[in-house]
């Protein structure tokens, strides 16, 4: 998750914008719940406070839904991208999610897509690609550029493929009007 926000900040930087990414400064262990933030702006970012009113929330691990207040401070016109093979209704979030704009909220099987392209259940790149498909806060080109910078060679190819597939997956669901 920390990597995802870092990559998002790099993607925004590659687009010529200012970005600031930072974790919730935990004593990080693989497996511990981690929140990380990314601010993107056209001017220099000075504030250092945590993001309390996000424009978008990307959830890598849906098992956290019941542990942490994931969507606190998110306005009804905010974006939600949630890693799950199930839809919001199946997850019991139907009523909650109905307060948001339908074209701004999606679930996607990011872990499955990651397995398909990377061979490992690491959904970072997939979620970033999906996020680029969900909104215009970041472009797919910038995401794939950031991925290639971070992961040289074949690993960059597979991550790029995963992100691209994810982006298409979300875009299809948007144009098809399917609430994936």
């Amino acid at each position: 998750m920390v990597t995802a926000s870092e990559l998002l900040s790099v993607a925004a930087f590659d687009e010529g914008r200012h970005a600031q990414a930072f974790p919730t400064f935990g004593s990080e262990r693989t497996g511990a719940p981690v929140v990380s933030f990314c601010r993107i702006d056209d001017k220099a970012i000075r504030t250092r406070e945590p993001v309390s009113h996000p424009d978008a929330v990307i959830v890598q691990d849906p098992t956290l839904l019941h542990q942490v207040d994931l969507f606190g401070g998110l306005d009804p016109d905010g974006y939600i991208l949630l890693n799950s093979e199930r839809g919001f209704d199946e997850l019991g979030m139907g009523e909650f999610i109905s307060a948001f704009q339908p074209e701004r909220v999606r679930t996607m099987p990011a872990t499955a897509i990651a397995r398909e392209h990377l061979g490992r259940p690491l959904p970072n790149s997939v979620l970033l690609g999906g996020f680029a498909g969900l909104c215009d806060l970041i472009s797919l080109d910038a995401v794939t550029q950031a991925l290639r910078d971070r992961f040289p060679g074949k690993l960059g190819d597979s991550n790029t493929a995963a992100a691209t597939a994810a982006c298409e997956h979300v875009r299809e669901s948007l144009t098809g009007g399917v609430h994936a």
Partner: protein
Amino acid sequence: MLEQLEGSQAVARAVGMCRPEVIAAYPISPQTHIVEALSDMVRTSDIDPCEYMMVESEFAAMSACIGASAAGARAYTATASQGLLFMAEALYNASGLGLPIVMTLANRAIGAPINIWNDHSDSMSQRDSGWIQLFAETNQEAVDLHIQAFRLAEELSLPVMVCMDGFILTHAFEQVDLPSQDQVDDFLPSFKPRQMLDPAEPMTIGAMVGPEAFTEVKYLMHAKQLQALDAIPEIAADFTEGFGRESGGLVRSYRADDAETIVVALGSVLGTIEDVIDELREQGVKIGALAIKCFRPWPIDEVREALVDADRVIVIEKAFAVGAGGIVGQNVRLALSGCEPTVFDIVAGLGGRPITRKSLRSLFDEVFEGNIEPNRLHFLDLKKDVVEREIGRTENGRNPGPHAENILRDIGTVASDSH
């Protein structure tokens, strides 16, 4: 070149370009990413020649730096929090011997209770150790200050601590303009030690000094620190000339020319404070800020000049002197002794508690409305009900148990939450 990267990586790259010859470090969060990166750079000969010493403690890290520096090598280390305390004895030794060691301090709270998050209690605990203490507001400034620090240290033969907020800066990805090796080489000449362990000219370093001379040796330490008050702005000016941007110096004012209220702070919180100042300025509030870039030596004249025309000064600091009050606040009051401004001491951001714009806004409102007593320590966002419940438990029970655990149970949150 402008890059988007983690603060620790940026600082490691900058330190590498300063061509350290000996790096001795012991891992402690949140310093680890810096020294890991430097270890890589030594292994791949990106820093060459350089010896990276994997020492067994911070005490050994500083001690090895002392030996290396005395042997004429440019020496560097990094630490935080408990690590700084563990090397405390050696810190005083390095400054007493006048060895130009540069250290990054990734500011972190001091326990107990153990806490890995940011505040300034570590650097403040060593404010009188004889080290120059510079504070970075951003990762750009952290990079720039390291380059300046080596030059400053070696010009004066004094150790320099570059303080950068742990996690908030060290782990933040943001854009940094990294200089070229040529730029750094032009700015930072090779190390010419004032004293050196050299068989060609044997010298005794660290002799015992008795009452007949100790005062004079200590006076010279003080005098050298005061020289730094001249050297720091000069070096910062040189830096601007060579690198095309302003970084460092002693203090920096923000929208303070006509300010009735000036907020004083150190480090990364100034960004958040400036955002709040802009909001208040839009509403016509005459408020500005003063960034303390150099806390030791204390730039008393510059601070007075910057604050003397204000009505009130709000000092926001991430540490305090237990049982006494504010630390930066006391220094500010010293600078303003006999002057008009009323000084408010606010301790904030302890152990990583976020200092939010919202909290700062309401703090300033409280100050404007006269609800905060000046010259007394005020804790920003203190959970008074929690404190009072625990005080109650302490009064009622004979064995109430440890405060920290009681309060955690009371609040019912886990440390890894986003607060």
